[in-house]
């Protein structure tokens, strides 16, 4: 069926003149969001029956629960119910079922849910939660993945081998290694033997928080007819329904009994993918049938008990010849994956398949290890492992160029991967405009032109790094779309991708608009409801423009065929002679013929005898990348086709850094991404601007700090600084490259995550360029720079 579909994509690609594709069509959710009409989960009213829950959290990173006494909490007026792990002895998880609805006998991270209080108001719930007495036997937490790898390390999950998981994970029983992705290609020894220079070093990346401004929230209701409805702030309504159905199967709930509704979401960045705190809402609803119950995370809980971006220790050994040809790469990644890795292990997996970066590397050995620690669960975060490994890899690439006496940009261009090159797992690289991206970025920052600051206490530095990323998806991750016309020729499209802010609803409207010649403002695309909208795996991986765009294109093409057929049946024109323009059907062979869509797409076309032909035009479309497979040799990763394609690009900065204080000011940041086809360039520029700033923050100041118990020390915006309007680079230059993706809608591929991936290494390079010091640990704060300049680091 792939052929059939690709034929359709080609058909969409082949449209000669494009009306709305490539235009900066204003977003279709603008009025909603600028008038206050946009409704987020916490804005929904559930009436006086609504109950509120507060969660009792572990104050320890690792402890045994000896007993729980809830009697004082239960005695508080207004408390409806107190539940503990005994009430829900179930595991859950997306890729590996290693997480518990509530902690059972052991807590594995500070902040883990131990019990919950349901009360008639939020204040009472919170007060009662503080009255629940938990008796802990405190144990020594494992906070460092390197220590967790020691032979005599305590096993954080002694039952690891019993956990159900996807076939592409390889847990090591009797260790803290939840998954080990090994990628091997070529003759490594020969590669290093051939090298004139071998450079080896280590790089460290800490944990980070997503910091969507809307905290996680769930309202759940099990009605008396045994129907569980959840309203969640989520990127993943269908995946949530699936995870809930699996976790709550012992209670007799299955997919048809569960409905997940996701209105607008106040930012996700990966943090609202999968299921984290929402499982608590789902479980609690089952003990108060008939009453909706709300769980809303505080900002502190948002930091401590959703997902965090995992920390990583990277060891890189790179070999290259004098002429600048890379010969071999050994890349070890030790991930601090946290207490539960049901989602995070797939981040480790993705990095382990792609940690060559966008380079042609003939001999590769990658080991990406997912290591349990007693820190909060790691998980998806914009970049999905790529931001993490690019810091070390790109820093290392620049250093290798310097060792070889080559310009780092020339070195990159010499080794940059191009279409048809063999990837580390054996497949061929997709079409890519990487070289064009490098050249345009270099031009934007005047690469090679030395600049000096007017202020003698300051130095100017430049950096230019590359990035790539493929969507990390199960091989059967799919998208679907329903389309229906309304009486006035407008239409409604339903999909289950999530509008997270990226402008997805607008892009879907543009795709349908282009094919059906109906302007985007006459197309309503709504947020998901699993009862009404068709399937979407999740809105993650920067894949919905591509994948769901294909599904919407397929639905629009089906609708177009139906429109042509009705006109053929009623008016006799050959279907092949008909086309759509300005909301009308027109005909190549009869210039006088035109029939407005509004005249027949619901009511049909009247015949001379007063009967009608046609009827409501409805259509559906789907897309599944049927060419992918996650099955491969576990020792080498050869033999499968795990990734659909890579989006590539380059980023460059010009910084001014204070020689004494180390303070960095970003004067210019340029980023070029090959998006295949820019369906909406304004939205892509928005991704570049926003993503760059988010990436710059991870290298300049954001950082999670934990105490010896694994408690987060900075769980507020006061102590975990995210950028304000005054922290923006003086100039941001977005550059759009368009090398079409053959199987993408109008040639498009995704770009959301990619915009932050290269931000960290470019700053490292620019600091090295300005001051001659190489920082190998993120973040590169003013303090660290100043200490390095003074020779006082380490």
């Amino acid at each position, binding site marked *: 069926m792939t052929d059939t579909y690709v034929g359709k994509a080609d058909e969409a690609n082949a449209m000669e003149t494009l009306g709305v594709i490539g235009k*900066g069509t*204003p*977003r279709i*959710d*603008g*009025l*909603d*969001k*600028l*008038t*206050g009409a*946009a*409704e*987020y989960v*916490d*804005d929904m*009213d559930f009436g006086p029956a609504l109950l509120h829950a507060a969660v009792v959290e572990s104050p320890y990173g690792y402890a045994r629960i000896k007993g729980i006494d809830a009697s004082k909490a239960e005695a508080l007026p207004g408390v409806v119910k107190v539940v503990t792990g005994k009430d829900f002895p179930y595991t859950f998880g997306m890729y590996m079922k290693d997480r518990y609805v509530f902690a059972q006998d052991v807590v594995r991270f500070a902040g883990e849910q131990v019990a919950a209080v349901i009360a008639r108001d939020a*204040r009472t719930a919170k007060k009662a939660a503080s009255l629940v007495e938990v008796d802990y036997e405190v144990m020594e937490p494992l906070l460092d993945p390197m220590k967790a790898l020691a032979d005599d390390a305590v096993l954080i999950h002694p039952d690891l081998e019993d956990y159900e998981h996807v076939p592409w994970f390889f847990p090591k029983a009797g260790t803290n290694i939840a998954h080990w992705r090994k990628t091997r290609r070529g003759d490594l020894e020969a590669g290093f033997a051939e090298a004139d220079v071998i450079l080896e070093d280590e790089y460290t990346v800490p944990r980070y928080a*997503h*910091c*969507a*401004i*809307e*905290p996680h929230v769930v309202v759940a209701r099990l009605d008396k007819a045994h129907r569980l409805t959840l309203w969640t702030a989520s990127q993943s309504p269908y995946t949530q329904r699936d995870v809930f159905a699996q976790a709550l199967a012992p209670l007799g709930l299955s997919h048809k009994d569960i409905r997940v509704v996701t209105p*607008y*979401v*106040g*930012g*996700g*960045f990966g943090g609202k993918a999968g299921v984290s705190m929402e499982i608590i809402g789902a479980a609690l609803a089952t003990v108060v049938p008939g009453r909706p119950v709300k769980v*809303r995370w*505080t*900002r502190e809980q948002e930091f401590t008990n959703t997902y965090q971006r995992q920390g990583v220790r990277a060891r890189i050994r790179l070999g290259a010849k004098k002429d600048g040809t890379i010969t071999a790469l050994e890349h070890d990644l030790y991930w601090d994956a946290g207490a539960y890795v049901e989602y995070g292990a797939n981040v480790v997996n993705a990095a382990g398949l792609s940690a060559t970066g966008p380079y042609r590397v003939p001999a590769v050995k990658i080991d990406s290890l997912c290591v349990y620690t007693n820190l909060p669960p790691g998980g998806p975060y914009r970049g999905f492992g790529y931001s993490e490994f690019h810091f070390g890899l790109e820093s290392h690439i620049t250093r290798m160029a310097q060792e070889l006496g080559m310009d780092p940009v020339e070195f990159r261009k010499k080794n940059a991967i191009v279409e048809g090159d063999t990837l580390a797992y054996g497949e061929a690289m997709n079409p890519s405009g990487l070289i064009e991206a490098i050249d345009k970025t270099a031009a934007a920052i005047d690469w090679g032109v030395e600049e000096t600051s007017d202020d003698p206490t300051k130095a100017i530095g430049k950096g230019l790094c590359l990035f790539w990323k493929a969507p990390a998806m199960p091989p059967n991750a799919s998208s679907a779309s329903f389309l229906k016309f309304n009486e006035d020729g407008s239409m409604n499209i339903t999909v289950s991708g999530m*509008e*997270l*802010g*990226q*402008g997805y609803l*607008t892009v879907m409207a543009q795709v349908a608009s282009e094919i059906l010649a109906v302007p985007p403002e006459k197309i309503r695309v709504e947020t998901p409801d699993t009862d009404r909208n068709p399937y979407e795996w999740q809105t993650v991986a920067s894949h919905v423009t591509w994948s769901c765009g294909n599904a919407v294109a397929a639905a629009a093409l089906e609708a177009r065929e139906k429109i042509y057929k009705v006109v053929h049946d009623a008016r006799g024109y050959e279907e092949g002679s008909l086309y759509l323009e300005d909301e009308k059907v027109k005909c190549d062979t009869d210039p006088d013929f035109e029939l407005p869509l509004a005249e027949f797409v619901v009511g049909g076309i009247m015949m001379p005898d007063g009967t009608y032909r046609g009827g409501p035009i409805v259509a559906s479309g789907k897309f599944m990348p049927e060419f992918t497979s996650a099955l491969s040799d576990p020792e080498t990763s050869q033999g499968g086709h795990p990734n659909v394609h890579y989006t590539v690009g380059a980023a460059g900065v010009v910084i001014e850094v204070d020689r004494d204080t180390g303070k960095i000011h970003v004067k210019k940041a340029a980023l070029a991404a090959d998006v295949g086809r820019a369906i909406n360039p*304004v*939205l892509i*520029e*928005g991704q570049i*601007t*926003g*993503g*760059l*700033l*988010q990436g710059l923050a991870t290298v300049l100041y954001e950082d999670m700090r934990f105490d010896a118990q694994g408690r987060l020390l900075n769980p*507020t*915006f*006061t102590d975990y600084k*995210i*950028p*304000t*309007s*005054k922290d*923006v680079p003086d100039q*941001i230059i977005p550059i759009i490259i368009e090398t079409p993706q053959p199987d993408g809608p109008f040639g498009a591929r995704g770009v959301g995550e990619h915009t932050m991936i290269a931000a960290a290494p470019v700053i490292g390079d620019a600091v090295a360029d300005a001051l001659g010091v190489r920082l190998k640990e993120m973040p590169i704060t003013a303090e660290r720079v100043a200490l390095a300049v003074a020779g006082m680091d380490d």
Partner: protein
Amino acid sequence: MKHTIEMNVNGEAWAVDVAPGETLLEVLREKVGVKSPKIGCERGDCGSCTVLYDGKSVRACLVLAVEAEGHEITTLEGISHDGLTVLQEKMVELSSFQCGFCAPGIVLSVHELLQERPDPSADEVKEAISGNLCRCTGYDPIVDAVLEAARIGPGDRG
């Protein structure tokens, strides 16, 4: 311990029973039904609950409801009684928002700025919204829309 306060919200007179510890944000959202001020941090860091208190921007999570007694509170729902303000219009037109969660607070912070400085510099706009955290846009698109709105001026829409 309940206390009845009288306040004006978006031009409407309200009398609401509040508890001593209740914040203006809770009362607006739960008892007045105005949902544009959002709950982002509940400690004054993020600015998503920004409202105008007698025309001055405040964080509704840091104002006790009893302090609103006798005052005028304006939220996004109340800044224009005649369609959109030019600022809202420009933000829609230029797609200078993403998830939209911070937008109500940002519009109010800028609305306050434009009342005082109808022709602000880019730096003044950045200063005015520096207490409103936005994780999506990188702020530049917002600043552009504000400058564009200022260039056109409010006309008769206030």
